[in-house]
């Protein structure tokens, strides 16, 4: 569940540019939960049907088929609180300081189904990042999104998604704005079901900054990602995710290459309650060495999710 918290940094997150190495933007990407949930409803591609002879015995009785009325619930509310120990709280290349942080947040999404393969998507995400020692790094992140998701079941359930994202970063005291960004996010995902309990997803994402204030931190992200999901039981699953992203900043000639590896173990206590153990590792290399950093995060999380 929180696999994205550390890894899905992906294209989903807003862009920030020319920011100092320890910027809230980078930390939001690294530590925040996925700003808004990605596609979750994959239409069934079940197409099996058999025409076979029947032994014509009545012994096992009559099986009257019942049709289950599908009840689609377009609203999702999630309240979550990941917490981490981080080896490099400020994401700096030198003088790293570890810290513990907690990042409570709430997400509200509305995904009306237009057709079986086409969904609209609207969401609001508010998340806070509170550091134990380095409280000057505390910040809050607000995302407002609107977009659409289109599934292509005839092509391996390819998922195409386009959303507009307004992101606003503030401090946590007075909610004074640190950065605001408007971006367009385009993603394409291809799931490969290894077996019923295993899935590998390959994806690519473009996160294009349309406008930002201040102008200087704006950037475009071009990423490739993959994640693997293994359901060991009805309630317990393991996830691993890897992302490779190139960050091209608008101001100056800065370009970063960022790699993130994240693993998580998730236990679903109830349909609406999930506990997770999380860890992630990130490496950032820039053509300006001052922006190089590496960081490890280890922690856990609890999430309450309600659909209606």
């Amino acid at each position, binding site marked *: 569940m929180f696999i994205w918290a550390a890894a899905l940094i992906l294209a989903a997150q807003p862009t920030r540019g020319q920011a100092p190495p320890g910027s809230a933007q980078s930390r939001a990407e690294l530590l925040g939960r996925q700003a808004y949930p990605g596609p979750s409803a994959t239409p069934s591609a079940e197409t099996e049907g058999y025409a076979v002879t*029947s032994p014509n015995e009545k012994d096992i009785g009559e099986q*009257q088929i019942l049709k289950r009325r599908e009840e689609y619930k377009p609203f999702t509310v999630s309240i979550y609180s990941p917490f981490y120990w981080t080896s490099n709280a400020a994401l700096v290349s030198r003088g790293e300081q570890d810290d513990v942080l907690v990042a409570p947040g709430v997400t509200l999404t509305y995904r009306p189904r237009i057709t079986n393969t086409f969904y609209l998507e609207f969401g609001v995400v508010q998340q806070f990042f509170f550091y134990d020692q380095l409280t000057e790094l505390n910040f809050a992140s607000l995302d407002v999104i609107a977009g659409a998701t289109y599934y292509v079941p005839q092509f391996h359930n390819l998922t195409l998604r386009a959303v507009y994202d307004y992101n606003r970063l503030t401090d946590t005291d007075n909610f004074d704005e640190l950065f605001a960004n408007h971006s367009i996010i385009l993603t394409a995902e291809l799931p490969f079901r*290894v077996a019923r309990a295993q899935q590998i997803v390959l994806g690519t994402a473009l996160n294009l900054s349309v406008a930002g204030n201040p102008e200087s931190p704006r950037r475009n992200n071009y990423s490739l990602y993959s994640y693997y999901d293994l359901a060991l039981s009805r309630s317990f699953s393991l996830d691993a995710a890897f992302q490779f992203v190139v960050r091209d900043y608008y101001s100056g000639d800065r370009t970063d290459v960022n790699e993130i590896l994240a693993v998580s173990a998730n236990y679903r206590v109830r349909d609406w309650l999930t506990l997770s153990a999380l860890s992630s590792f990130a490496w950032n290399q820039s053509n300006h060495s001052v922006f190089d950093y590496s960081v490890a995060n280890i922690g856990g999380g609890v999430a309450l999710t309600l659909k209606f």
Partner: protein
Amino acid sequence: MLVCLILRAICLDAAQLKEARVTHVVNDVKLISAHAVPHAATVGKSVRDGDAIGTGAASHSELILADQAIVRLGPKTTISFSGGTRTMNLGEGAMLFQIPKNAGNVKIKTDAIAVASTGATGIIERHGQFYVKVLVLEGTVRCYLTNRLGESLLVQPGQILITKPDVTALPEPADFDIAREMKTCLLVREFQPLPSQRRIESEEQKQLNLIAKGTYIPSNLVILGRGTQVTLVNAPSATPPPKPLTNIGHQSHTP
């Protein structure tokens, strides 16, 4: 002396756990053992690990395993036992199984498909290389492929799974009316009431509630007995002369 008694008790217990007992025989039922020629099965006869039992046309039989699991065989059905009779291999035909909650894990295999449960009542049917059908009346059954890691699903009460015996991915189960199944199933009606009868009735009631709520909509599609041939009937509650329609493997073919 005490050690001998304990050892003897352990040996007896182990031997009993590896045996099933025939409790009901109608017409032609044969026991097939590796060490003897096939012979007629009679009530009280033991079936051991490695043995097989088969029924002829218009015949059926019932066995009780050492852990009180009940197995009822329909006509033209063959099963063999392995793993101390805790694993049954369905070669052909149809069988009803009732696994008590405290019986431990009982497994039924047919080709690459295995059905395992620690407490459930259901029916499994196989016809050659054409299809395997699993119905669950109460409890939860895990269906999985023995040759494919992770290809596993839980079949809940009121769900029916139809697939090919050599399938590489399990399809989604459909839903069926438990009450109608119970009223028409000869493996229920022509035997003593099942110990799980009340739990099955409870599942019937749950389905009725869901039908009343509109979660389930009774269709006019019925599989009349074995096989996968779906018959269109005029109304869900009536049973006028059936009209063959098509074959299905899953729910999406319902209207």
